């Protein structure tokens, strides 16, 4: 009882302090500045409300916002800048939130359509994952996500198998072995490679690699997860090299010198000191590469077959059907109704997957900071 009243006092104390701060702020600031900032904030809120209501009058509060912000910028720059940067931060979050909510809301109809009853309980959306048939046109119409998830997993696995060893080895060479001049030339060069548009890779894959592979492996027509995975892995490579190199070269020199002073060779220092110390950073690099591979659209779309079905057997990488991203890219133009909603489901799955990968990468980074202290 005593504790609760204590907490209550503390809360009212915090609240009172807040109120006092606000009052001080209001007292200290010029009334004219307060009015300007107030008008800016209120007109911005009104613009957001107008935008959400799809009102043609939105332009009025938005005009007021621009004018008052412009006036405030000239007269009370410090305060206005504070308010503006804060509102920009809020709008960024709001916009991203609205997009997320929209994707989820759009996918609801197909989740309802693909409901299944298990032990007398209706589970919405379960059939999306419990059967493997996708057919948007001829009955029975089914929108299974399993083939696309399978495709994404295949492509990502192969891409990681290409990008991780190559990327880590290259990063190790750049960070530890290469002379400084070589590193200074190669590092920016690799980063420039990351900027090559994915359609260029896709185009080379579609016109040269895929027909060649179909010929060599005697598959029926072109399009294989193997080659999409290789191409996507090469695309993710610059990201992996660049981030892993940063992690490796930020291992404190003192740790390496200490190891060398104990009489180890360079290679022993690399494998037993540098790599373990930078393990978290290198993992984050690989995870970023994986994230890029999952989200890769253009190369996958032009190189894959675009027919959602599982390959037989499941590990057969010589046939490539569809990934979550290529499904959306192939069908958005023609889809309507439930088929369109099914594309949003693919978007939701991608969103959740990439979210987990980003959180994972952040967590690893946080652990690295904790483990090695302020040095990294």
């Amino acid at each position, binding site marked *: 009882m005593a504790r609760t009243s204590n907490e209550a006092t503390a809360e009212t104390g915090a609240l009172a302090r807040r109120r006092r701060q606000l009052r001080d702020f209001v007292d200290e600031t010029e009334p004219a500045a307060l009015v300007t900032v107030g008008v800016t904030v209120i007109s911005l809120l009104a613009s957001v409300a107008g935008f959400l209501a799809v009102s043609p009058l939105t332009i009025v509060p938005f005009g007021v916002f621009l004018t008052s912000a412009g006036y405030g910028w000239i007269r009370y720059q410090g305060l206005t800048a504070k308010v503006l940067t804060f509102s920009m931060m809020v709008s960024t979050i709001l916009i991203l939130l609205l997009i997320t909510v929209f994707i989820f809301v759009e996918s609801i109809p197909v989740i309802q359509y693909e409901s299944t009853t298990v032990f007398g309980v209706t589970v919405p959306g379960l059939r999306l994952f419990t059967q493997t048939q996708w057919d948007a046109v001829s009955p029975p119409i089914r929108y299974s996500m399993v083939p696309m998830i399978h495709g994404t997993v295949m492509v990502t696995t192969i891409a990681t198998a290409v990008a991780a060893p190559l990327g880590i080895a290259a990063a190790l060479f750049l960070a530890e072995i290469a002379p400084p001049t070589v590193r200074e030339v190669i590092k920016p060069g690799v980063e420039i490679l990351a900027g090559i548009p994915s359609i260029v890779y896709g185009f080379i894959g579609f016109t040269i690699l895929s027909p060649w592979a179909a010929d060599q492996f005697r598959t029926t*027509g072109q399009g294989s997860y193997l080659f999409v995975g290789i191409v996507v892995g090469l695309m993710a490579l610059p990201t992996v090299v660049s981030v892993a190199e940063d992690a490796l070269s930020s291992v404190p020199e003192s740790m390496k010198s200490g190891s060398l002073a104990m009489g180890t060779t360079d290679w022993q220092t690399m494998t037993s000191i540098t790599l373990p110390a930078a393990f978290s950073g290198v993992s984050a690099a690989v995870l970023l590469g994986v994230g890029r591979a999952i989200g890769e659209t253009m190369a996958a779309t032009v190189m894959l077959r675009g027919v959602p079905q599982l390959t037989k057997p499941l590990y057969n990488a010589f046939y490539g059907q569809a990934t979550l991203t290529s499904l959306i890219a192939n069908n958005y133009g023609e889809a309507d109704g439930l088929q369109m909603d099914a594309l949003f489901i693919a978007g939701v799955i991608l969103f959740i997957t990439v979210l987990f990968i980003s959180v994972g990468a952040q967590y690893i980074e946080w652990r690295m900071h904790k483990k090695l202290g302020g040095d990294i």
Partner: protein
Amino acid sequence: MSDGTTSGTDVSRRKFLVSSSAIGAAGLAGCTSDGGSNEASGGGGGSSDGESSDDGMNTELLTAEGSSTVYPISNKGASYWNANAPPSDGEYWGSNDESTVPGWSELQTDKNLADYFAGLYGFEETGQRSDPAYNATVSLSHSGTGCKAVRDGLVDIGNSSGPITAELGLSDSEAEEQFVDHVVGRDGQPVVVSSDIYDAGVTQLTGEQVRQIYQDEITNWSEVGGPDQEIFVIGRAEGSGTDTSFRLNMLGGADAPMPGVNSRFGQNQQVAEAVANNDGAIAYMALAFVSDSVQPIAIDFEGTVFEPDKDAENTIFDSAYPLNRDLHMYTKITEDTPSGTDLREGAFLNMFLTDFGQIVFVEQNNYIPLPTKDIEAEAEKLPEQA
């Protein structure tokens, strides 16, 4: 289209020079309203107007409206017509050192484009580019709207991708009494195979075989007389118009299953590239993309063999070929024109029935040109040439 814009720019530049005080914004405004300035320039060639009215020739603006499917053909034709390019142009009309328009060998004239076609029906030639004897304009709406507009006399030509009987709910005889049906091209997809299959002797399939291939009942070319090779079956984006019409006309229903499809592509270019790059491929796509490595094949529908040859008795260019539909331009029968097609309409429509028109306006827009016998039949519906 681009030529139409160029001509508009020319006119506005001339205006700009005359009214030297005009500011940049006015010049821009002149550019954007190129239709208006074209009309103005058409009217501005007053001398030719005056002379032609003496001959009793009608040189009003020729108007057309309707289907978005026919629009590319009709609008490109009108743009070429309004530009009235001279034979030295090479790109849009005639021939020069750099290029020659398709079908030029049968035309061989020293007149400008619209002057030539209008001249065939007795119109006075202007000899000026961007200034034809009369201008043509095409509006974009729907097949039904285009048919209604020509019925109500709002436009001269009604564009429709479906027969007017269906659009306006008329019987065949009613439609024949009121309208003349000019077919200018066809929309559809020939079935194509890769060159290795074509060279191995598979140059004809039955409709039933195509159905079995797309429904996974035939999976090897050896089952239809070809080499021992798996069939690479290419389809179009699921649920797209081409996909639906193929299911409807070949597989027996708009929702017929297609379990045999190995690969789906959204665009004709991708289909052509995939067929060219892979052995043992079969696909359906717009005719404009066929080449030596992408060969159209003959299809046998219930005993009728439709051949990929314009001059054959039954061809894949026919309207009877199940994957095709006619693209119509309707004109109305009135008291003034009991034949249904006046000289203005006749001259304009005749342009589409030449080799030049069929290639440039029909085939280059990915539609199917008319076979020789249909062109002859269509030409008979037009008024007598002068």
